[in-house]
């Protein structure tokens, strides 16, 4: 029997990153997938990145992942969102060609050294336990009865665990439209002692682009400027396809409200919990009755297809009702549905059962990543896949696990949140989850994280050096900005032109650039030529100087409480005066540091102080 270093179950966004990271770190890796042809499939809308999510892509890329590069290759247009909201929350988004994305990812997966792919359904996790030691995962059993053994197992089954698709009042087991679910694995996880929950997500109808009257819609063109997610992308001038915007109206609302009885959501058939940030159109009409108009984004699916995605009207109403309400929307009066929208319910493992390394707390060497942990989103899945893949490899090599702190990366926040928070709805990343977001903009992910990628052998030395060189040159230019004195007569005309106070005495270019209304382009003529990469970093350093300093002071303070460890097996019920809710939550989640305990919902600051005194006393 073959013995592998690592088995990855699933070939979605988490599975791909996990398998690539593990195999590239030298692990003999096996990917088991239900269907070879859907590896790297985008199940929902054909776009990558966006608010809170682009940061994840840049970070995965800096660690040596693939999602950024493949997105760039498949991109059919970029837009930078939030340009007016500040440099740190600014986010890149790309429309991508669904087919090209999938094919590009498959090509990479099938051509990676140490990585073997097999079309097989994993139905059971094999574990072993010597007396007195923890249970340990050692392999999987497939539906065909084969047994595969490995030192580490990573499960990334997405929405396939016990998946159940709903369209109207009809439902049937499925993992994704037209694909089989994975039912037995769910039972295997339960048998091992995992607590499972049930979530719901939905998607909207795909329609024929030839049946849309675009004159009645608003065109949203991609940025003219070239953008990229990956540091490996050199030249990037994608075929630009615009998106279009239209709106629902009172008629749409009327039809939807009239047909609620045939909605599985409102007739009580769907038990799983959906995400509040991604509600179905039924939800929007019911919960916000006074709002009669909702945006609909028409997103092209790719360059050589007539299929397109209707973002904003995800639904599980019967197909005929879907058609009826779509026909009330300007531009969609004659639209033809290619694939209907649907809701899917699926099992997930309550994520507090994993460590921030994504290894499970009860079964050693077993890692979970992606939607199986209750998250939603391609980017969230890829980030977890990256972490699980790296940690599985480190485990096999006998090295300590890789855990990114919350102040160093969005990925760190994601892993920490999952391992400490109770998930009541699909978890997606928001910039507001990241308390140190001001120092974690997407543009400096390489400065922050490439050193780790290098250490793991996932980032070549050459690429790392390039980034270092860039960082150094920005430092030099920063000094230059400080030493370049601008005379009133040369700078005042520019200041006046941009509604900025003129100066009386000479001032450094640094001080001028500190003004919020002054952009680096306006004073570029006075300093040495900059490239785009240097510009944004330089402007960030100058404009955010005060915040960067404050953040670093906070991080230092944070580090102190973070380093206050709670011993393993600590009995929270022995802490006098702890509220019952705090006791229950702490005992369940088992935080390893005081700071982690602090972040658990329902644990109050008075509880933390009581815990702190007790810990101090027991030392």
């Amino acid at each position, binding site marked *: 029997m073959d013995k592998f270093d690592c088995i990855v179950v699933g070939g979605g966004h988490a599975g791909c990153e996990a398998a690539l990271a593990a195999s590239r770190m030298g692990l003999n890796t096996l990917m088991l997938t239900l269907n070879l042809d859907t590896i790297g499939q985008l199940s929902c809308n054909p776009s990558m990145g966006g608010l809170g999510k682009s940061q994840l892509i840049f970070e995965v890329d800096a660690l040596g992942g693939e999602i950024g590069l493949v997105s760039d290759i498949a991109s059919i247009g970029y837009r930078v969102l939030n340009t007016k909201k500040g440099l740190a929350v600014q986010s890149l988004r790309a429309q991508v060609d669904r087919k090209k994305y999938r094919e590009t990812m498959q090509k990479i997966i099938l051509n990676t050294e140490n990585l073997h792919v097999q079309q097989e359904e994993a139905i059971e996790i094999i574990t072993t336990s010597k007396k007195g030691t923890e249970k340990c995962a050692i392999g999987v059993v497939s539906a065909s009865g084969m047994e595969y053994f490995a030192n580490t197992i990573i499960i990334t089954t997405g929405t396939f665990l016990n998946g159940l698709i709903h369209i109207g009042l009809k439902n049937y087991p499925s993992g994704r439209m037209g694909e089989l679910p994975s039912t037995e694995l769910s039972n295997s996880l339960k048998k091992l002692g995992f607590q499972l929950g049930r979530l719901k997500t939905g998607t909207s109808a795909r329609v024929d682009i030839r049946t849309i009257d675009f004159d009645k819609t608003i065109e949203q063109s991609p940025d003219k400027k070239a953008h990229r997610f990956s540091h490996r992308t050199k030249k990037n001038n994608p075929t630009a396809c615009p998106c279009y915007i239209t709106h629902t109206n009172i008629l749409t609302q009327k039809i939807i409200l009239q047909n609620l009885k045939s909605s599985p959501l409102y007739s009580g058939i769907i038990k799983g919990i959906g995400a509040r940030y991604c509600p179905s159109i039924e939800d929007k009409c019911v919960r916000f009755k006074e709002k009669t108009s909702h945006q609909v984004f028409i997103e092209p699916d790719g360059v050589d297809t007539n299929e397109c995605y209707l973002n904003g009207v995800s639904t599980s109403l019967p197909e005929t009702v879907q058609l009826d309400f779509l026909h009330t929307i300007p531009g969609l009066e004659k639209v033809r549905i290619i694939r209907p929208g649907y809701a899917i319910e699926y099992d997930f493992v309550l994520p507090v059962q994993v460590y921030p390394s994504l290894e499970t707390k009860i079964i050693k060497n077993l890692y979970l990543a992606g939607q199986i942990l209750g998250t939603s989103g391609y980017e969230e899945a890829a980030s977890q896949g990256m972490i699980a893949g790296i940690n599985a490899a480190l485990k096999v090599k006998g090295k300590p696990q890789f855990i990114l702190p919350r102040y160093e990366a969005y990925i760190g926040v994601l892993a920490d949140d999952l391992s400490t928070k109770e998930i009541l709805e699909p978890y997606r990343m928001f910039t507001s989850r990241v308390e140190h977001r*001001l120092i974690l903009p997407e543009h400096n992910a390489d400065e922050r994280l490439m050193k780790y990628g290098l250490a793991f052998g996932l980032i070549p030395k050459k690429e790392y050096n390039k980034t270092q060189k860039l960082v150094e040159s920005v430092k030099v230019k920063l000094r230059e900005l400080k030493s370049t004195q601008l005379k009133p007569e040369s700078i005042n005309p520019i200041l006046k032109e941009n509604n900025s106070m003129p100066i009386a005495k000479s001032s450094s270019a640094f001080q001028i650039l500190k003004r919020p209304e002054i952009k680096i382009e306006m004073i570029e003529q006075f300093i040495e030529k900059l490239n785009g990469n240097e510009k944004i970093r330089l402007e960030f350093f100058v404009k955010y100087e005060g915040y960067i300093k404050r953040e670093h002071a906070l991080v230092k303070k944070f580090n102190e409480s973070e380093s206050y460890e709670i011993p393993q097996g600590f009995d929270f019920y022995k802490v006098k005066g702890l509220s019952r809710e705090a006791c229950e939550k702490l005992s369940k989640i088992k935080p390893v540091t005081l700071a982690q305990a602090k972040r658990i919902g329902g644990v109050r600051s008075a509880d933390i102080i009581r815990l702190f005194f*007790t810990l101090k006393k027991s030392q």
Partner: protein
Amino acid sequence: MDTIAAISTPSGEGGIGIIRISGSKALKIADKIFKGKIKPGLAKTHTIHYGKIIDNTGKKIDECLLMIMLKPHTYTTEDTIEINIHSGIVPLRNILETVLKNGARLAEPGEFTRRAFMAGKIDLIQAEAVLDIIQAKSEKALTMAINQLEGKLSDHIKKLKNKLLKIITNLETDIEFSEEEIKIQNISPMLKEVQQSINKLLISSKQGKLLKEGVTFTLIGKTNVGKSSIFNSLLGKEQAIVTKYPGTTRDTIEAWVDIKGLPLKLIDTAGLMTTNNPMDMAGQQRTQKAIRESDGILFIFDATKAVTKGDIHLLTSIKDKKVICIFNKCDLPHQKIVIKNFNSPFLSVSALNGTNIDLILKSISKLVILDNIPPLVSKIRHIETLEKANLSIKKAISGMKNLTPECLAYEIKEASTCLSELTGEITNEIILNQIFSEFCIGK
């Protein structure tokens, strides 16, 4: 946990002295040192017993009332014994010593309250309020402490935090869902409202600090103008030694007076004079120090003598303090005295026959008390935290036009974190929950 004991009545005040013992050994200790009709170990909980306290040799120290309170219904939730005696500090100390010899440990300051807090009986602000009640110097300070204990401050802070949460919700919605057509509220008026509320609390805090810590007034003036006489009249008892010889008071003398709930510390000083005598010089230095450290000055003149240039010079040098000019000896023939360009209240008094002495206390309380603001905040920690929050709000208000939403959010979150140090926390989850319940989100 150790069994702890302490004298829980302030030294030198009140006729009753209480020693409190808390912990698992409290009953055993009582059994050893108390002789009465019943053994404390056999008594019912929450009962009082008459008897005597004996030391380890069996000698009686004092008579007492012994209160027995068994866990869990006690302040600390532990077994608690309280020994009440009706005599002075010496027997009180002897009894405490005996208690300590029999297995208790001397409690650290505030340790009973900390145990109550640790046992979950009270929250942080309440715990601090208890310490204030114990240390309260006057009636008003006590009311304030009780207000805090009842959670009025917590209520105020909670309201403020709800306002901040609303502001943050609007800002974050603007950042996270900028692609969607959501109308967010103008946060500028909301921010100003918060600033006003914080300012109100801060103004009241000055009052609160005053009530808690009291106010200090120093009596100064030339030698033999009657400072010590006025000092004694104010105290109503002879505390300073008064003679007709100049320079009798060489040292500074302090005493506390309660003016309708305001604790007032009076400092009597050596008369101002030029001297070469080292002892007098030391006295003069102490006077200078007292002036520096006090909130206000009672500047005493001799009404029968003319005001000199030196007096005017001194008055000018203390003009940033609250000053009351008092002309003593108005029972003797004197001329009407005017000092130009000074806004300080003027009083003509006579320490000898008591004329207008009561006006001095009234003037002091008028100078320092702000009537209409209910004091809620007194702890330095609370004031500092509120000031920090205020600073962030100020930055946000002044940056409304210039700062990007992410930076505005940063400032406001910092303010909210500050307030959270006073009560509970606003977590990222709470913000997101708020966004989802207020706005229709989702493409």
